[in-house]
């Protein structure tokens, strides 16, 4: 069963087309990794799903066409997006960031979810009354992930969660994502430069090159495939 199906998706910024008709699927309950070189259009794929760029083609969430829908409505349907650079609200406290993450749900569910994610990321509880802008990069990433999960989304989109983080912190973040995938029913679609770590938690990978999807393959073994590694993983 696919939670998300993308068919013939084009996306453009102004007059420049960045995605030239791509197709891929995100199986429900699994972690799908988007791999590709810098500038291949990976971030644009995530932004297209949330309709933050102009798109044509067809994006279906659980069979429902969401192409052309307003971004906040798509969020309401259960798509959470942790953007590149994390997008935390720097002038709000950690607690306020989490609470506003529950905007689309009831106060009771929000209360419970906030407590749950405090248990999951104890560091956030310690910093609950601090302004989010003062957190370290790793803490901000955890906050961004927790905030995205407060409303209990069906699909979690993550854009380069490792960006700007020390290797040890990156590992911590991916370990957390692996746990989230196992402990919740959340489907995850993650764009990541650090292919090695991403493929460890991923079940399939979408390979992107110059605005086109080249292949969608099972993640197992991909990290050791010499040709794929050189072409898409850059090491």
């Amino acid at each position, binding site marked *: 069963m696919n939670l998300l199906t993308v068919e013939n998706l084009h996306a453009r910024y102004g007059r420049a087309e960045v995605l030239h008709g791509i197709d891929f699927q995100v199986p429900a309950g699994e972690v799908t990794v988007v791999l590709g070189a810098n500038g291949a259009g990976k971030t644009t794929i995530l932004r297209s799903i949330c309709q933050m760029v102009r798109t044509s083609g067809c994006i279906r969430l659980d069979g429902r066409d969401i192409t052309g829908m307003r971004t*906040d409505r798509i*969020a309401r349907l259960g798509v959470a997006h942790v953007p590149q650079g994390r997008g935390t*609200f720097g002038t709000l406290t950690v607690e306020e960031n989490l609470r*506003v*993450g529950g*905007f689309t749900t009831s106060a009771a569910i929000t209360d419970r979810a906030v407590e749950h994610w405090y248990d999951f990321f104890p560091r956030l509880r310690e910093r609950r009354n601090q302004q989010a802008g003062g957190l370290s990069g790793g803490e901000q990433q955890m906050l961004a992930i927790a905030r995205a999960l407060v409303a209990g989304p069906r699909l979690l989109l993550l854009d380069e969660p490792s960006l700007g983080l020390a290797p040890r912190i990156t590992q911590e973040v991916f370990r957390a994502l692996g746990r989230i995938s196992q402990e919740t029913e959340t489907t995850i679609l993650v764009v990541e430069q650090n292919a090695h770590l991403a493929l460890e938690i991923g079940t399939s990978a979408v390979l992107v090159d110059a605005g086109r999807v080249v292949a969608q393959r099972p993640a197992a073994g991909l990290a050791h495939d010499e040709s794929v590694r050189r072409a898409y993983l850059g090491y």
Partner: protein
Amino acid sequence: MDVFLQQLVDGLMWGALYGAFALSIVLVYRASGIVNFAQGEMAMFSAFFAWQFHAWGVPLYLAVLGAMAVAFVGGAATERVLIRPLASSPNHMPLVIITLGLMLVLNSAAGWIWGVQSKEFPAIVSGPVLTLGPVAVSQQSLVIVAAVVVVAALLFVLFQRTKVGLAMRAAADNPDSAQLIGVPVGRMLMIGWGLAATIGALAASLAAPQLFLQPNMLVASLIYAFAAAVLGGLDSPVGALVGGLCVGVAENLAGTYISWIGHDFKQAVALALILGVLLLKPEGLFGARKVARV
């Protein structure tokens, strides 16, 4: 000493009004990132509505509430119709020009509809001036201060205790992220502009008995309000109120005690204050000096 106390009390009363106007400037700035130069004229226009409702026989306080409701709708519509279409551009200059245009349009329209002659606007409460020792305070002044305190308390509750208020702060902080968690950012901006106009309508209706109602009624007050908003920090509601009180007191004392300033030159004090703050402490007394790690 008596003169000093009297000027201080008068300064606080005017300061509360400047603080209220500064609050509307701050609310719009937080929502859209621009200073709305039409804020004063929107408030003046709303006060004319209150006057008109009252002239039609509506009790004064209901007329003022009605004008506040009209102002909310008008403020929200301004955001949607005049600001939103150009808001996605990173260059804010066109928006500022639009607010300047709106200021001129509202000013002329008020003159065209209601005439440029000053109109008498009744006070919400009339009654003998109260004396506290050497200081005389009109009852209307007390109403003004009380109204501003109530407005401030309501805004505090809205922003700190309600879901909508929290979403408004999130939308002001990072509109893209706010959309991604399901906040209808456009609606939050309309609410911000609506609230700003509502507060302006209330303040203008309370100031009108003293200033007399006419299209240029708030031109001078607005520069004090700008000074108050800049002093407090353009993104800080608390700063707007504190800034308003500081400016009100400073303006009154400077006009009284510095002979070459007198009554006619008082607005230059506000201008000097704006310039000084922007040069020395651009984020103002309470503005967020953005903490951000990259």
